[in-house]
């Protein structure tokens, strides 16, 4: 297994380089002058030229890219062309809030989706099944930004139960937790809807298998049949879906971060793209690519855990 992991990690290097080349090309080719954007529509020509010089935009893009890549080898992601601050430090500062939101929303997704999906499958066509599927479709149909605004209006403005926005600090306190709940709910419930449906269908398929009937025939308790025999085998497609969702949780939270003024990486990425702050965009894309690669690797490893027949030698 270790050999497999090492091999997979080695393969990620060309993947990451390819991703950064692709994204750099897109960003460099996109119309727009970072100096002009930084200074706004009322900027004087001399000011734009001066800022271009300060930003180092006089060099050809490929030289800027190679310099940046060499920095990456030395674990330095360059400096923001707008603020001059080290990109590594900027990402390091934004990563924890994003991780908190990702972990919080994934936790919420799992505690809602897994039990609800299993119960729906076990009690197929019952009112529990109908209700949970109704909820699943409801959450799936609800755009995240809309849900976020509704939650904010109800729980923060109307009932004053949670802060309207911002990330409470220090972390791991009640202030922090109360500020995390609404963003996590807004991010997690939609995915919970998706995962509930997937869990239900996967469980239904397994529950109709011969070996489940055999287990029941042997007199094994229903709880053991479901959680020991059925659920473990039903987890393969669920794990796949979770693996696919992880990158989206990291990169797709920008709307939630904006609505709740959450200082995460998503907002930083969008702002940097709009402002053509190339080093930050490159650095963030690199981080996202690493997250995608690692989450895929995690899923592959989990396959082996849930289904011992899957080997990676």
């Amino acid at each position, binding site marked *: 297994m270790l050999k497999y992991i090492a091999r997979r990690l080695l393969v990620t290097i060309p993947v990451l380089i390819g991703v950064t080349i692709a994204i750099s090309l897109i960003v460099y080719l996109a119309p727009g002058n970072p100096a002009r*954007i930084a200074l706004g529509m009322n*900027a004087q020509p001399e*000011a734009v030229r001066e800022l271009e010089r300060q930003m180092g935009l006089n060099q050809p893009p490929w030289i800027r890219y190679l310099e940046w890549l060499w920095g990456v080898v030395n674990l330095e992601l360059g400096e923001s062309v*707008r603020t001059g601050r080290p990109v590594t430090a900027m990402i390091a*500062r934004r990563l924890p809030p994003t991780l908190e939101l990702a972990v919080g929303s994934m936790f919420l997704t799992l505690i809602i989706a897994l039990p609800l999906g299993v119960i729906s499958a076990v009690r197929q066509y019952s009112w529990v099944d109908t209700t949970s599927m109704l909820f699943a479709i409801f959450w799936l149909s609800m755009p995240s930004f809309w849900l976020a605004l509704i939650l*904010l209006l109800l729980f923060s403005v109307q009932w004053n139960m949670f802060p*309207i926005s911002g990330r409470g600090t220090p972390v791991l306190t009640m202030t922090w937790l109360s500020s995390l709940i609404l963003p996590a709910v807004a991010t997690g419930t939609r995915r919970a809807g998706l995962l509930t449906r997937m869990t239900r269908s996967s469980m239904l398929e397994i529950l109709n298998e011969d070996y489940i009937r055999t287990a029941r025939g042997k007199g094994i308790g229903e709880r053991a049949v479901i959680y020991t025999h059925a659920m473990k085998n039903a987890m393969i497609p669920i794990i796949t879906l979770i693996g696919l969702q992880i990158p989206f949780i990291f990169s797709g939270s920008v709307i939630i971060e*904006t609505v709740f*003024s959450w200082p995460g990486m998503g907002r930083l990425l969008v702002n940097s793209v709009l402002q053509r702050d190339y080093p930050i965009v490159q650095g963030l894309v690199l981080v996202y690519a690493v997250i995608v690669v690692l989450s895929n690797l995690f899923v592959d490893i989990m396959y082996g855990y849930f289904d011992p027949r899957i080997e990676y030698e």
Partner: protein
Amino acid sequence: MANDDEERRISRRRYLETIGVTGGGAALAGCTSGPGTPTEGSTDSDSTDGTDGGSEMSSGGTFVVGSSSKASTLDLQKATRRPEQTILSAIHEPMFRINMDLEPEAHLASDWTVNEDATEFVFTLEEGIMFHNGEELTAADVVWSWERFVENSPQSYLLAPADSFEATGDYEVTVSFSDPYPLLPRYLTNPLTGFTSRTAVEEAENYGQDIAVGTGPYKWESWERGTAVTVSRFEEYDWAPDFVDNQGPGMPEEFRFEHHPEATTLLNELTDGGVHGSSYITLTDTDEVESSNNASLVRKEYTRPGYLAINTQKAPTDNVQVRRAINHAVNKQPVIEAALGGEGYPIWSIVPPIAVNGLSEERAKELGEQYNQQRARELLEQAGWTNSSQGETRTKDGEELTLTFYAFTIPRYAQIGEVVAPMLGQVGINAELEVLEAGTLYNNLESGNHHITTMAYGGNWAVNATEPILLGENTATEGGTNYSLWENDEFDELINQAKTSPDQETRQEAITQAQELILEEAPVTPICAFNKVYGYKNDINGMDAWTEHPWWPDQEWMNRLELGL
């Protein structure tokens, strides 16, 4: 000798009288805000007593300012944008302030003189002005700051014409120019021309990101990235301008500038959350604030114009008749209602009448084009663009009258475009509207791909409202902000006179003629000027004093000394 000096130099008061009432059209250049006349909610600008509401003020607490836009740098000599200026105005101070009579008034100088041809200025600093790090402000600091400003600032053009900045004493600075520069005191009211501690800059690893040190009423406390900047009260501060009732220190212990990028969230934070005040209320949301039990709103008419820049170098808008037809085709009031929720007023000249030296509304209406679809159709016919029936796109030599129309993604600009395009269609112009994000928009404008674009530029004086957007050397294809690509030698000469003539009457006449020339040639379609609004929690003390200054958004910091929690 004294008499000689009096002959050679004119006094500060005389100078103010000279450039004063007419202004001559200088700039708070780079400011995205401007003056206005107080409307309901603000107080009589003639009063200098700023104590209304202040008698119940308490000292302490954190005043939270909400903003939907965030700062990139807090280095005074590198900053440019409004959110940065708002914070920096708490930390730093310029040499001059705009007083209640809208004149530049020395703030950090105890005295100043200028020679007759306005080529040499001598400033004597107040003694005892301290930086936050305990150093005293000296002439050497002023010279160093201004030289750094010229070298680094995106707005360096304000001081770039100076030949030299020289410390001619411990507290005396002499600024020399080759050509007359009579409007220097006005330029020195720009907060970005203030002073920075040299020691702080040299000691900081990343000045403006980790620290900023000035002489202002509040000092740097912290910058939580993506969240907030906090400044704390500078206890030694007691040198506010004379026109401010509280000479310092400020009442709140801290000001915390929070970033809330989503408009609805910011609104909720103001009405029901932790934000005490914000000037970033979306104009279409003002009703929400006014109907709130917890918050109120002040508004006033303002000088920032919204307009269409018409490309004068690309057919068919290179034809003045086509441009005038566009002006006649736009009905301003529906645009104001749709795009601004009614928070604006129509303008007929690119310089709103409330700006210093702006043409009067009557004169602008007399010379400019008012809404008249029939007249628009006639002008298009005269230009050779005909159509067989009303509602069809006009043609000329088999070619359709189709114009490329750009708008910025910011809602108010996009909505202006969405309302105006069908209006043009009603006179037979097919305006193809494209709503573009900033980078793509600027790129296309600099390439001259457009016929029309929605635009806005803030100017408090007629010169700084017209120079950047229409001067020949500022054309967008050269990297400037003249998106009409208008090149008119007569206009350029008039603007030059309005800026440099030592004679105030000549300056005033020049800027008046320049505005009339704009109306004649129609390189822009003036539509409306945006209102300025500020939402605040009802329990804030001192709002009356804060809005007392006629230009309260620009001069807010001095009067903010009177805000209490």
